[in-house]
């Protein structure tokens, strides 16, 4: 794996992917006023005839997507993560229940979104969409992986929710390594036999930094980018349970219902090793810079280090 380099935000990768997907005439893009933010605006500029602006009306957008999917289109609908939640029941009843392939993207997920404050900081979206039968839930960690995983949605054949982040994060992949990613298969970024850190989104780079700190103290960690929260790569988790003394999960999301919960549910079923969760405790965020908020919420690389050490002691 090449060293992390500066890249874009995962929402940039989403926008770049939509533009590439435009070659397929079935692809349509639906917007609810935030195309400049979600980056669907790139598709709009190149393909206005296949972009539908639905105004600030997310519930309608989701069902318009369902109707288009039932008519042979492959709709990509996006808004802020928090506002997709306004249409949760629409996704549940109107999209997933009939099995219509609508791809929903929520950008600006997590407290990492920053100064807009708690109303814009979705910390429950992954949990919500994970409960819906047949729904794929994706949360990429950088722009290149976001682009690749979005491209793969074209032939995915199931409804999906992808959470992207507002802010730039260090690249975990390069052009070649990102091509090896597969929806539903976790990606090992680092190998170590003492502890496994399973992370998603902006917490993947924090997990890598935590692993470097741990290594200085003789603790070697495996780091997994679990970009697909559902279907969860349980085969990989089973391997980690065999290889490592414990698992620490890391997410910019509530510890209730997200990646940590998904991993814990599987490990509690199959048994084996202790699991610790690094995530937003049962509380709302507030305005602040991303770094400040990560400190406040206890979701920095230091918190991951502490959890690993606590688990191993």
């Amino acid at each position, binding site marked *: 794996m090449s060293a992390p380099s500066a890249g874009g935000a995962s929402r940039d990768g989403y926008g770049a992917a939509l533009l590439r997907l435009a070659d397929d005439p079935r692809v349509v893009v639906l917007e609810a006023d935030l195309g400049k933010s979600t980056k669907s605006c790139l598709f709009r500029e190149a393909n206005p005839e296949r972009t539908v602006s639905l105004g600030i009306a997310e519930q309608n957008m989701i069902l318009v997507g369902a*109707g288009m999917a039932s008519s042979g289109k492959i709709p990509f609908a996006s808004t802020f993560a928090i506002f997709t939640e306004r249409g949760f029941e629409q996704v549940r009843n109107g999209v997933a229940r009939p099995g219509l392939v609508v791809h929903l993207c929520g950008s600006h997920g997590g407290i990492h979104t920053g100064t807009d404050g708690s109303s814009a900081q979705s910390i429950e979206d992954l949990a919500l969409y994970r409960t819906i039968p047949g729904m794929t839930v994706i949360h990429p960690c950088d722009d290149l992986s976001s682009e690749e995983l979005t491209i793969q949605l074209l032939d995915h054949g199931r409804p999906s929710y992808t959470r992207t982040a507002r802010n730039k994060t260090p690249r975990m992949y390069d052009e070649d390594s990102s091509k090896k990613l597969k929806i539903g298969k976790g990606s090992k970024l680092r190998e170590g036999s003492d502890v496994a850190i399973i992370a998603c989104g902006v917490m993947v780079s924090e997990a890598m930094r935590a692993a470097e700190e741990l290594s200085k103290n003789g603790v070697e960690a495996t780091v997994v980018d679990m970009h697909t929260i559902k279907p969860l790569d349980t085969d990989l988790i089973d391997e980690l349970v065999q290889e490592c003394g414990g698992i620490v999960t890391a997410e910019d999301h509530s510890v209730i219902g997200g990646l940590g919960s998904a991993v814990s549910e599987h490990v509690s079923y199959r048994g084996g090793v202790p699991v610790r969760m690094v995530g937003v405790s049962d509380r709302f965020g507030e305005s602040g810079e991303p770094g400040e908020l990560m400190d406040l919420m206890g979701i920095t690389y230091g918190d991951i280090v502490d959890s690993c050490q606590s688990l191993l002691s």
Partner: protein
Amino acid sequence: MNSADRASDMTTSQLGELALRCRRHIVKMIHAAGAGHPGGSLSAIDIIAALYGNQLRFDVKNPDWADRDRFIMSKGHASPAVYSILYEMGFITEDDMMSFRKLGSVCQGHVDMKWTNGVDFSAGSLGMGLSFGLGCALAARMDSSNRDVWVMVGDGEIQEGQFWEAAMAADFHSVGKLNLIVDRNRIQNDDFVEVQMEVGDVGAKLASFGWDVMEIDGHDMEQVSQAIQWSSSMTASPTAIVAHTIKGKGVSFMEDNPSFHGKAPNDNELVIALEELS
């Protein structure tokens, strides 16, 4: 029946007979299930019979024919009305129809495209159908297809905000192939609409949203047929038929009676209902 070429040309009298047969199916299947929604099925069935009898292009042998017209039953609790017409058109069998609400039945409690041939929408949660129909109509336009989209909603249903989101968007996008029917039967689950939250002059509200509107007696087959033809001919902007109807129409003790919104007739009531519908 293959209505792909829309060869059938039923008279209003024949459409009335079709609707009457459907009314009998409706009360029988709800009685057999011991549950269901007779009131809103009986208020809607004249319009549904006219649509399937003379207007919609579909192919029973190929229910997924891409260029079929779409009928989106947004008030999905009135599923017996849909199942009765699907049986009459040959999409489902009598056994299918009479297994309504039973485990494994293709006739689920609320209409569901995943379960039933000929059903184009999975309903059950109100306020979503017009948005879905808008998506179907936008896709048809992108495909340069001539297919029409018909959406039926209840009047209580339009208390849902999403309905008005869709109404505004349909006007903005000038989706002329979208045809709305409001079943204005004045009763919702708990009571009369005017008691629960009156929706007022629905036609004027839709007109103010940019829709072309026609108001009719939804049980007068002449008016129903003319309104359907008018709506189909209007292709520049979305059109709405506000159909003034009677909940439970055709069965005296169900008519205009909120208690038969979602209640099955008992054995004696079935006998009386079938006598009245003979």
